[in-house]
């Protein structure tokens, strides 16, 4: 039946003609700039110095990896933000998904309502929370004082550690709904007969969760975590509004650092090299993650 698409009347040029407009645009607006950025990364082009540049080979990459404490610090900061965010998003998302998977009234509307933060732009999420965290008139400090938990104006962004906690909190608020949706879809594809069979055999719901739900949900969880991890390496808008990398660069992520190098210092070549290092890092992380998955799947339980 599908073979009928290859009927003799088919014209050879048609597939190419249909696909070419978008392929041409992708070539011009994405692939060519990427190639150009790689070429740039091998020069010492610096707009704050002037339009002249010369070829320096891999020097930018070497500087970033071995001498640039600020870049290496931003790699560390990104990891410090990513790790707790992923853990909390996974656990909280799983919890809410399990609740929504029970027989409850109004499930579609509750699901859609909880999903809303994930649709909001990072900039808007950060702006809302920046005001919620407001020192004198923010809702969090006001509520804390009203409940007697705080007795002074508390500045959430004065201390590096608490700033990171605040960033993670906003990130968790922003993207747990995504994790929840992915896990809910996974939960709903587990056949109910398995639970019934377990119940007949005398298993408690708790045992059912550990022996049926978790093993069958493992793949979905891995996919969700991987998507969030790749997205989190791009963390930019949220940082820009919430902390602008502060205090003292404690929340400066790789994407934000690259932005500052490119558009505050105007070191275009160096910023290109940094962006290539980010792409490489994401690629390596993804491959490691996929490799671990495959290894664990291949190993007999």
């Amino acid at each position, binding site marked *: *039946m599908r073979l*009928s698409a290859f009927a003799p009347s088919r014209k050879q040029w*048609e*597939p*190419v003609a*249909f*696909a070419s407009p*978008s*392929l041409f*645009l*992708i070539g011009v*607006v*994405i692939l060519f*700039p*990427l190639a150009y*950025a790689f070429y*740039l990364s091998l020069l010492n082009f610096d707009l704050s110095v002037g339009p002249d540049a010369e070829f320096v080979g891999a020097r930018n990459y070497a500087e970033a990896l071995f001498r640039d404490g600020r870049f290496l610090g931003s790699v560390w900061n990104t990891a410090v933000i990513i790790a707790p965010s992923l853990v909390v998003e996974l656990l909280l998302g799983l919890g*809410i998904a399990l*609740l929504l998977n*029970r*027989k*409850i009234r109004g499930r579609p509307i509750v*699901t*859609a*309502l909880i*999903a*809303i933060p*994930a*649709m*909001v*732009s*990072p900039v*808007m999420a950060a*702006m809302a*929370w*920046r*005001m919620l965290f*407001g020192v*004198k*008139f923010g809702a969090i400090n006001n*509520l804390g004082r009203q409940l007697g938990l705080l007795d002074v104006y508390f500045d959430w962004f004065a201390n590096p550690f608490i700033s990171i906690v605040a960033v993670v909190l906003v990130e968790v608020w922003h993207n*747990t*709904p*995504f994790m929840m949706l*992915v896990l809910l879809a996974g939960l709903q*594809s587990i056949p*109910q007969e398995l*639970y*019934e069979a377990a*119940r007949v055999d005398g298993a408690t719901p708790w045992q059912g969760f550990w022996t049926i739900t978790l093993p069958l949900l493992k793949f979905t969880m891995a996919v969700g975590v991987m998507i969030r991890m790749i*997205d989190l*390496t791009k963390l930019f808008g949220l940082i820009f509004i919430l902390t602008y990398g502060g205090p003292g660069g404690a929340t400066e992520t790789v*994407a934000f650092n690259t*932005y500052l190098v490119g558009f505050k210092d105007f070191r275009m070549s160096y*910023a*290109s090299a940094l*962006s290539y290092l*980010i*792409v490489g890092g*994401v690629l390596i992380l993804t491959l490691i993650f996929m490799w671990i998955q495959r290894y664990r799947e291949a190993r007999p339980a």
Partner: protein
Amino acid sequence: MSVTIARPAAVTARRVGHPRLRHGFAQGLTYLGLALALVFFLGPFFWILTTSLKGNEDFFAYPPVWIPSDPSLKHYIGLFTRSSGLRYFTNSLVISSVSMLAALVVSLPTAYSIARWRFGGGLLSTVLLVLRMLPAIALIIPIYIMYKAFGLTNSYFGLVMLYTVVYIPFAVWLLVGFLREFPVEIEEAAMIDGCSRLRALVTVVMPIIAPGMAVVALFAFIATWNEFLFAIVLTGIETKTMMVLVTSFTTGGTDQFYGEATASVVLGVLPAFAVAFMLQRYLVKGLALGGTKG
């Protein structure tokens, strides 16, 4: 496709102790947990909305006033007039709508070519998926230099072209899925009747996959609406979007312009609310492929 099988009530209730009581207790905890989740995820929106309607005497009051005593739209009016918010809101609307339409027009034939003729084999599909994962920061530096050279910064055209193209991989990916579900026989019947391939696509295929195209369009709209990095680097005083406007309220603390700041957040998240309800069934797929991040 998820298969859900209704659980017979008799099986659920078969528990030791007081089955009814125990079941009721579990249900009560479930609703309590969901209520807490709703407060956490929607509470910030509630506070932002009420604050945007508050006057100074409510905002600066202690003990805090949670429900505005004299709600007014004066901050929205201030935002639209004093901060040129109307212009930037319109910019966001126009840029998002045009990019959305352009991305659809360009992506549909490509998706058709992949779905019907397996154009490019698996390689093209993989490349498109990898392009979706590409961090925007890797693209903005060369784009900025190129746009500067061609005078495309601070222009609607430059921004719309970038958004359109960046969105093509995602649009093609989703549309291929919708097209594969569409029986090829219908359009072939039309072609036997003398219709050209392109005409069959426009007059026969498009009306039937219109719901799928609407899904792609809404995701494209909100992704463009939400995009920040390209916007902050490439826009100037005339072409700013809502996302860039918000940054102007962070300098020198937000307390002074709390009203306009919250009003701009309310306007900035409106599409998200609309789309979350319209696209419920497709949220997972769209979000997983990066549908809302530019």
